[in-house]
């Protein structure tokens, strides 16, 4: 369970949001809306623990992020605008090193199984730079499926995905929520078939 209470942040001298509060239970999925530059990405980075809010605090299972520190990072997956893939390496190598870094290395079979799930089995040994934009996104999403973690923070996950890929991602988000996970995503497009999504629109503070 994650609780955000009265956080406020500033970007330079422009206040992004102030006393923003919401809570999410296991199985919730929240869609953050708001025009560009409103602070969606900054909020996601704060939820991931990459940056601290100026005021207020964020609690994970009742404990403040500042106390949890690095252990909290083991509880979440963060997918930013950039795909976090090394262009030189193949999807297989990327996933191999990503799981090593994340702390639970996978066997070769498990990695191949995950790549098959995202439909990249044929391209698993091609360097990522030779893949299409959609395939790169799939390779990035493979990291989410490789190691099960309760909290997913997705920044514009549907961009550059074709319709079949979008529905697949919608499917993964659904069964992640069913298994008691929490998903916080931002997107401008219309979301595909995701059950009970709560919307939260960030507005410019007056």
């Amino acid at each position, binding site marked *: 369970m994650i609780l955000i209470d009265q956080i406020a942040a500033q970007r330079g001298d422009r206040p992004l949001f102030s006393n923003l509060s919401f809570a999410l239970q296991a199985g919730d999925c929240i869609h953050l809306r708001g025009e560009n530059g409103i602070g969606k990405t900054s909020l996601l980075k704060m939820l991931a623990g990459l940056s601290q809010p100026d005021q207020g605090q964020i609690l994970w299972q009742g404990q403040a992020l500042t106390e949890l520190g690095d252990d909290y990072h083991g509880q979440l997956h*963060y997918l930013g605008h*950039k795909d976090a893939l090394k262009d030189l390496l193949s999807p297989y190598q990327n996933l191999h090193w990503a799981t090593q870094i994340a702390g639970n290395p996978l066997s070769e079979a498990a990695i191949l199984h995950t790549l098959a799930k995202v439909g990249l089995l044929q391209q698993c040994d091609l360097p990522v730079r030779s893949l299409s934009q959609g395939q790169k996104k799939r390779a990035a999403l493979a990291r989410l499926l490789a190691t099960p973690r309760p909290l997913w923070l997705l920044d514009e996950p549907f961009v550059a995905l074709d319709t079949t890929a979008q529905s697949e991602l919608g499917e993964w988000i659904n069964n992640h929520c069913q298994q008691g996970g929490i998903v916080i995503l931002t997107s401008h497009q219309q979301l595909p078939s995701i059950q009970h999504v709560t919307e939260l629109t960030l507005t410019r503070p007056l």
Partner: protein
Amino acid sequence: MSSWAFFCTVIRRDLFLAWQQRGDLLVGLVFFVLVACLFPLAIGPEAKLLSRIGPGVLWVAAILANLLALPRLFQADWQDGTLEQLLLAPAPAGMMVAGKIVAHWLTTGVPLTLIAPLLGVQYGLSSDLLLMLMATLFIGTPVLSALGSIGAALTLGVRQGDMLLALLVLPLYAPVLIFGSGAVAAVAGGLNGYAELSLLAAIACGSLFLAPWLAAMAIKLAVE
């Protein structure tokens, strides 16, 4: 996952990545050799003078080659977003930076140290001078990587970051250069040069201990 395991994983990952781009390592080495070869053209071939300036020239060339390789520490990972994933690993960020410093040292510092005697011969340095030169380079290059990592982290994503990196880091390299070339000059002057070497080692311990945490703080700013 223990931070020691994470430290080794980061080193293995960076070495693996550096191995994929073997060409870049070679470029760094060739740059070092080139700079060392240009000086005799400028100063003239007489051996006595060359052997006197040899250690200093090699040390300055080593510092410049190291400076050239510094952006490779974080720039590539920052551009494709993997730096955020490294920060999101369940281990302290300082460990990640320490791992990257060691990997950077292994890919730039050690090759420089191994090649330096070859160039030293070109400058007519005697064998015990070459030995001391290798010792000072072996102890000094980790300091270059450590202090350089702070500069690289501070100038991540900043306009003309590379120029700024040189301005930030070179003044900090002055003590290493002084004691590095000073030790070799002491051996040339008949002393054993252990005083300078021990001071260099002291600076190495200090900077290797402090640099990862400061650089980690600087990286968190760039990723924020």
